[in-house]
């Protein structure tokens, strides 16, 4: 993060958590309830009413799908008959099993939530800002990049503050600039699967590339076998003319084998040493950095690392995509003039506060070199200052219903009911076979 040129204009100000008063926005009871995915602040695409979640750019994913489907289709149509007759019918069966496994894991990787961390609620963000202020001391300048150090298993790890999500990122989490989300145990953003690869879908990704390597090698080997066996009977050129599709398959498989087998090997290494692609590229745990540098997350032996990555418990999704956006909950007001004011008593103050925040944020976005898309910062705030958290128990809902009208939307920020995806987690109802949590 760099300080803006005109730091005076980039005056650091507190996040406003105050929404407008009940008088300004009459609550429309007849509006149909929206699901949370419709107001998700990240740059993701949702399908099937929130059941499927992908990145914004999905072109390459369709290419992957087409390549796999076409190659396998050609293999089953043209080569399998010959191989089943000449060798054994088990070959198409194994091919089919591999193909289904590949498609299954691909769709599972692409469609599931990689482990997105929901953005902080306005109250949380304000609380963090207060704590950071206390730590830095208010100087009137924009504060330096925020980090927190924590010691994990003897290694000092720096936790960075994410300006978009307004949280201190947990260790191993990273912000994906393409999807504009913080993802837990972020590995990389894979355009081939059209999604980020993170904590929740890493095992599916690994199984996808592993099974795809087997499938590619399998098809390659048996298409070559087919051509050789056929050319022994009718000659090489005739064999090629007989099944031109085989030539295409060989070409596709030949080029795929190198990259996919290589990638599988690389990820096998990563899994066995319990690292992410991100950490490996940065050399975070490399012994070249310093003699005492070691990976604090590794379990010590390869077998345990592999088991933990592939067979460990699958955490649930933290963003409740299909939950309904509830009516607004009470939020705390920011302190004004050093004195905190609570309840619904400060209508004028709230507007001024919010307008100030708006201007400051625009200044921030304009002048500051933010690693994340600064333009989204405003949008992020607009989303943040919309709805509040949802009640989970009956008692809480009663308490909050009382203040429902009090925490309405901020009209001038055009918050379209932008809710932080703070989620009452609901039991899984996986509809698609290869759907997701």
């Amino acid at each position, binding site marked *: 993060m760099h300080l803006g040129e005109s730091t005076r204009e980039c005056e650091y100000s507190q996040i406003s958590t105050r929404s407008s008063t009940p008088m300004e926005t009459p609550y429309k009871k007849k509006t149909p309830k929206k699901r949370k995915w419709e107001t998700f602040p990240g740059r993701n695409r949702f399908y099937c009413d929130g059941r499927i979640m992908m990145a914004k750019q999905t072109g390459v994913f369709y290419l992957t799908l087409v390549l796999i489907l076409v190659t396998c289709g050609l293999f089953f149509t043209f080569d399998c008959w010959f191989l089943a007759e000449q060798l054994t019918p088990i070959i198409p069966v194994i091919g089919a099993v591999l193909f289904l496994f590949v498609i299954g894991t691909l769709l599972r990787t692409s469609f599931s939530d990689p482990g997105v961390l929901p953005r902080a609620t306005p109250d949380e963000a304000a609380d963090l800002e207060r704590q950071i202020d206390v730590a830095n001391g208010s100087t009137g300048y924009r504060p330096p990049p925020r980090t927190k150090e924590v010691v994990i298993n003897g290694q000092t790890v720096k*936790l960075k503050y994410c300006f978009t999500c307004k949280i201190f990122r947990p260790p191993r989490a990273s912000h994906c600039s393409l999807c504009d989300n913080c993802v837990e145990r972020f590995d990389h953003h894979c355009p081939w699967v059209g999604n980020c690869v993170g904590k929740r879908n890493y095992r599916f990704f690994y199984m996808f590339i592993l099974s795809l390597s087997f499938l590619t090698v399998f098809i390659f080997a048996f298409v070559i076998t087919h051509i050789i066996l056929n050319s022994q009977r009718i000659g090489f050129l005739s064999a090629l003319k007989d099944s031109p599709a085989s030539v295409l398959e060989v070409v596709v498989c030949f080029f795929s084998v190198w990259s996919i087998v290589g990638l599988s090997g690389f990820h096998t290494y990563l899994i066995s040493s319990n690292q992410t692609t991100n950490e490996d590229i940065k050399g975070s745990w490399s012994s070249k950095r310093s003699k005492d540098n070691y990976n604090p997350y590794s379990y010590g032996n390869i077998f345990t690392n592999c088991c933990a990555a592939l067979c460990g418990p699958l955490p649930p999704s933290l963003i409740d995509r299909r939950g309904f956006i509830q009516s607004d909950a009470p939020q705390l007001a920011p302190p004004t003039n050093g004195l905190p004011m*609570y309840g619904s008593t400060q209508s004028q103050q709230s507007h001024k506060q919010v307008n100030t925040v708006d201007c400051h944020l625009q200044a921030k976005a304009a002048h500051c070199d933010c690693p994340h898309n600064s333009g989204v910062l405003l949008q992020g705030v607009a989303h943040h200052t919309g709805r509040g958290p949802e009640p989970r128990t009956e008692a809480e809902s009663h308490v909050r219903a009382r*203040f429902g009208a009090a925490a309405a939307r901020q009209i001038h920020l055009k918050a379209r009911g932008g809710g932080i995806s703070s989620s009452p987690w609901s039991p899984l109802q996986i509809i698609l076979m290869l759907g997701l949590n």
Partner: protein
Amino acid sequence: MATEFHNLQELRRSASLANKVFIQRDYSEGTACRFQTKFPSELESRIERTLFEDTVKTLNTFYAEAEKIGGQSYLEGCLACATAYLIFLCMETRYEKVLKKIAKYIQEQNEKIYAPRGLLITDPIERGMRVIEVSIYEDRGSSGSSSGSSSVSGSTAR
């Protein structure tokens, strides 16, 4: 100022939200879900230290149980993989079962311990497992606008 609420209904009727305290995650043992057991100063006048610490420690135990890597989780993982994850159409993952237990525990704690003291704990899953949010309520009748000032830390920096 100790405001007494005899039950959640009373809290409902006469309370207003005064402050929120956030218990952050404790990453000193890795990325597993664990919350700091440090007692926040804002709650000093509201609840006994031991009660609060017990709640947080129990929650930490629950999360550790959910994320435990052992025989049962391996079995579940392998079975799930073998059935192409279709098994989860019929049964819940262990993590989800534990999350339900946690939700029940938090509700119990709220009803028995926290609501009578004018506090309310929000399930961390609703906050993306980042924080345990403790909402502090003040009795509407007895508090004015300045009553919450003592419980806000750091605001004097402004």
